[in-house]
């Protein structure tokens, strides 16, 4: 009799634990709370933090896109914007926002993991509800992300978030040198996000880009560290309010202290004002 009751008790406990549609059990997920900051990355926050900024990145670009990069670098060296659109407050998009220019917060819920970036107020939703890729995927700079939690070491707790992101639009580049992605926007980005095994205040993001501007998939690992503040300060983006860079046509100009247009390049001509002459 007591054995039967015991078996029943265990069954009850198991039924109670599994719930009826999954209450969120935070103990099954890694502790990624708090404010995350970029680790290292050197000058200009290059895409691959392990390599020098600029040509040192050795991006596996096709000849056509290598030429675009070189033209961009040359234009920037002369004072132009090159292919960089971040400077006029366009969103960084994916994967560039994972350079983590400012601060990041990760909010884990049962169905979604949110990655909240301070720069440009970029928000990523990573759907972990088992959904399929939508037939009519909304296109965006941030892309559409589907993720899966994995318990790699079998200890009953998830430790890796695997994410795939598709569904892009817009001209996107990887960093301030403007390593370009293909204009066909067929990029696929795969990420493995996990805590460092020896230091839970370090997080790694192994990012693989599959893109037609590249001759092969390109994988880099970015590291983030957790800030120590119990009540971190969160800043929102005020890019437009103070921004001093404008693009008119394909020309980059800077705004002066008194709000006027200034040339950014030596001997740069003023903007074409043909539409004013017609009035």
């Amino acid at each position, binding site marked *: 009799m007591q054995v039967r*009751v015991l078996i029943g*008790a*265990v069954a009850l*406990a*198991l039924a*109670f*634990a599994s719930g009826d549609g999954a*209450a*969120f*059990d*935070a*103990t099954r997920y890694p502790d990624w709370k708090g404010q995350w900051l970029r680790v290292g990355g050197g000058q200009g926050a290059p895409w691959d933090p392990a390599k020098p900024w600029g040509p040192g990145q050795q991006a596996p670009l096709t000849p056509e896109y290598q030429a675009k990069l070189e033209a961009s670098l040359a234009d920037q060296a002369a004072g132009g914007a090159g292919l960089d659109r971040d400077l*006029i*407050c*366009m*969103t960084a998009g994916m994967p560039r926002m994972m350079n983590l220019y400012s601060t990041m917060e990760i*909010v884990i*819920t049962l169905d979604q993991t*949110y990655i*909240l970036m301070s720069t*440009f*107020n*970029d*928000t990523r*939703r990573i759907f972990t509800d088992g*959904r399929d890729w*939508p037939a009519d995927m*909304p296109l*965006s700079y*941030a892309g559409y992300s589907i993720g899966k939690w994995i318990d790699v070491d079998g200890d009953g707790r998830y430790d890796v978030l695997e994410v795939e992101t598709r569904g892009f639009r*817009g001209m996107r580049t990887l960093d301030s040198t403007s390593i370009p992605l293909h204009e066909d926007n067929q990029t696929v980005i795969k990420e493995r996000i996990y805590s460092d095994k020896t230091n839970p205040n370090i997080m790694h993001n192994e990012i693989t880009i599959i893109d037609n501007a590249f001759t092969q998939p390109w994988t880099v690992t970015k590291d983030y560290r957790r800030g120590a503040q119990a*009540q971190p*300060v*969160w*800043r*929102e983006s*005020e890019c*437009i*309010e103070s921004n001093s860079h*404008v*693009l*008119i*046509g394909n020309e980059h100009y800077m705004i*002066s202290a*008194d709000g*006027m*247009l*200034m*040339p950014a390049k030596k*001997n*740069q001509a*003023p*903007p*074409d*004002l*043909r*539409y*004013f*002459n017609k*009035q």
Partner: protein
Amino acid sequence: MRGSISLFMLIAVLCASLTGAPALDETRYPDWKGQWVRADGAEAAQWDARKPWGLGQQPPLISEYQALFEANLKQLAVGVKASDPTTRCIPSAMPRVMMAIHPMEIVVMPDTTYIMIETSSTLRRVFTDGRAWPKEREPSYAGYSVGQWEDTDRDGRFDTLAIETRWIKGPHSYDDSGIPLHQDEQAVIKERISLDRSDPRLLRNEITTIDNALSRPWTVTQSYRRVVSAQPVWTERICTEDSQMIRIGEEDYGLGSDGLLVPMRKGQPSPDLRYFNQTRN
């Protein structure tokens, strides 16, 4: 008997250990998941949807700010939108952003409730961890929000989130008619958010603004309707991409489809090019 008691204790221990210690007991919080849209429709872009746009809003402004409001309306009438910083992609500030002209999501976590609104990619963090107000904070468009959950009907489940928001950056307005808040950036916004008791598809936000441009606190209720969809669509809104406007000096200019500067109104002077004359050699 003793055996049964031991067994019950065993059951209790098993249950406790297997369920772990969930950080958020969802049964204690209201279900605000999903996508919320402005119940009165995005076309009803006035602060108080019950009243007409513009002067019909009857904001209880002090005379100085009533005069400013009327001046803003006159400017709008001739196509000058200088009173509305959102036309230059400056984010909608509090409380305006809570009109939810674009969809909104609310994520309730133990220490913080996140309110995400597509407009200006706004993220509000409402801290519900019992923290004290900091001595000061840099003003921001979203402001700094501290909230407290209330169980007003004492059924053991929270139903109302009471929020206070301070340190809101200006200048800003309640809506695109240019009803101004005081330039001293001392506005305090109090909200009470709860599901409509008779219709749980509606979320009500009773917003009270206490501001030195007002002769008294001004309370307006915003209403949001839950979108019925298992997978709502979220739209990325990049104002700088859509806006195609540049401010040079005191003038707003447009960018044509060819990327060149275009006047925004008849007779608008071309931009001052003084720095080009100085630096060319």
